[in-house]
């Protein structure tokens, strides 16, 4: 059964269209991502899937049900990790889980047992009886994820799960989410980090301006919309623009950004040799593999994080 099914889904706010007719299908056990810059319509889509925002148009079915008429029934089977933490700062770490479990009608005894299991899973057992307030950002986020799992949900919705965390905390969150994925939990996440999408998503859609501009696995998207490698050149000059014309003919495509020039090529080292053969001496040269960032740049002409 398709867990999430959307056709021509639209969300309009006064005078502005946040989601502009998207088609999405999410299958059980999948890790599905919405990748796009801020304002692409990812969070609006997530709120519609989370049954706290009625669609303006189109068709939406979650777990085979209508989110407008059967919201509470669907929400009972979803886990939601919002973009901004909304933990109770005054309660203890454990109480945050047990009180939230009660909103799902879970018996107290079961709630306590499950809270202990989940604290172990997100590595917060030692902080179980401390208040939430003094926890670090990464710990709070892990607690929010644990809270989203308290009802043993069939789908877990994660809105920007690692935004605002330091690299170490991000890796810890990714590792836990990866474990969940291995346990067969369906994950739906939004992100504007291409590395996050590459790490976690089996399949993703790239969103821009409320529309889906591409869909596929991270690998397939890169193969289709970008070259194998990318050469990043930085010239020590006010503007990178004048150097672009001198790079004509090297690689498949040249992209000029404010601070650097990207050369899309099959073999990076050969391209670098050719650049140097033209008597150009960039201040910085970097050869790397193509990423989802390049896919986004190719599709929209803009960078993801701005």
């Amino acid at each position, binding site marked *: 059964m398709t867990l999430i099914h959307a056709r021509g889904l639209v969300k309009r706010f006064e005078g502005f269209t946040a989601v502009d007719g998207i088609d999405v299908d999410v299958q059980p056990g999948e890790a599905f991502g919405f990748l796009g810059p801020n304002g692409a319509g990812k969070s609006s889509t997530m709120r519609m899937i989370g049954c*706290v925002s009625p669609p303006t148009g189109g068709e939406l079915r979650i777990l085979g049900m209508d989110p407008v008429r059967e919201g509470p029934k669907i929400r009972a089977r979803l886990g939601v990790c919002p973009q901004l933490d909304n933990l109770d700062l005054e309660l203890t770490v454990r109480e945050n889980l047990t*009180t939230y479990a009660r909103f799902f009608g879970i018996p107290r005894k079961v709630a306590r047992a499950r809270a202990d299991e989940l604290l172990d899973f997100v590595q917060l057992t030692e902080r179980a009886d401390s208040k939430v307030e003094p926890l670090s950002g990464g710990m709070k986020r892990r607690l929010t994820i644990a809270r989203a799992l308290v009802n043993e949900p069939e789908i877990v919705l994660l809105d920007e799960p690692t935004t605002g965390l330091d690299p170490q905390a991000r890796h810890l969150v990714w590792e836990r989410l990866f474990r969940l994925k291995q346990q067969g939990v369906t994950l739906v996440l939004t992100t504007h980090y291409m590395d996050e999408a590459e790490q976690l998503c089996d399949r993703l859609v790239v969103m821009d301006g409320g529309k889906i501009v591409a869909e596929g696995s991270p690998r397939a998207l890169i193969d289709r919309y970008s070259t194998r490698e990318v050469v990043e050149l930085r010239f020590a000059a006010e503007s990178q623009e004048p150097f672009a014309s001198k790079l004509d003919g090297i690689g498949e495509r040249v992209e000029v950004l404010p601070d650097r020039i990207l050369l899309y090529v099959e073999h990076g080292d050969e391209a670098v040799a050719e650049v140097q053969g033209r008597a150009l001496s960039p201040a910085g040269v970097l050869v790397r593999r193509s990423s989802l960032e390049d896919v986004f740049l190719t599709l929209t002409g803009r960078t993801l994080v701005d």
Partner: protein
Amino acid sequence: MFYVLEYYLINYRRVWRGSVLSSFILPLLTMLGFGVGVGAYVTGGVEGVPYLDWMVPGLIASTALQVAVGESTWPVMGAFSWDRLYYAQAAAPLRVTDILDGHLIFVVLRTLLSSAAFLAIAAAFGTLHSWWALLTLPIAALVGLAVATPTFAYSATITVDSYLSILYRFGVIPMSLFSGVFFPVESLPVLFKWVAYVFPLWHAVDLSRAATLGVAPAWSTAGHLLYLALWVAAGWLLALRQFRRRLVL
């Protein structure tokens, strides 16, 4: 709805000792200050009873107002704008009415607790003239709800807490001063009399006073109750509308 109430009770468990203590201390100080201090100047009493006995039922109702409004301002605004607790609840299988009603019931319980503490102190000072005085508790709950519901609506509308002081300046303080708590409404000029009649507090004060003194209220009992119920109903509808606006985008 009861799951939401349970949540607030668990939260209250942390602070109940301090809260109960202050529920007793405030009326105790008031009793001493007004009863012994001001009461000594008001010789001959009011309407045939000692000033303290006359004022106590008003203070019970006015305490209900203070507690109910206090619990409906920052806690409600904060649950939208600061810790976003309502959004966490909305993601669970609760309906907006569950979120609203669960919190309202908690506010009514807090109101009842403070009023009961005041009533107990008042009894200890021998200011209650009748067993009807027990009725001040349901009256406190009703007036608490009558002010809590519109305050919920207001707190759910604003996003900056400095707007809350407007509510106190133009609502709570005039209501407390001109609703017959400290002096009879009859001694006021016409304009201020209407402040008393329009706001909910005076209706509860008049009923409470009738209860503790064991006399008939100045206005019809049914009229008072219906008017307070009207505030509850209108406030609840407004609160639900604002809660929906914020939680269902």
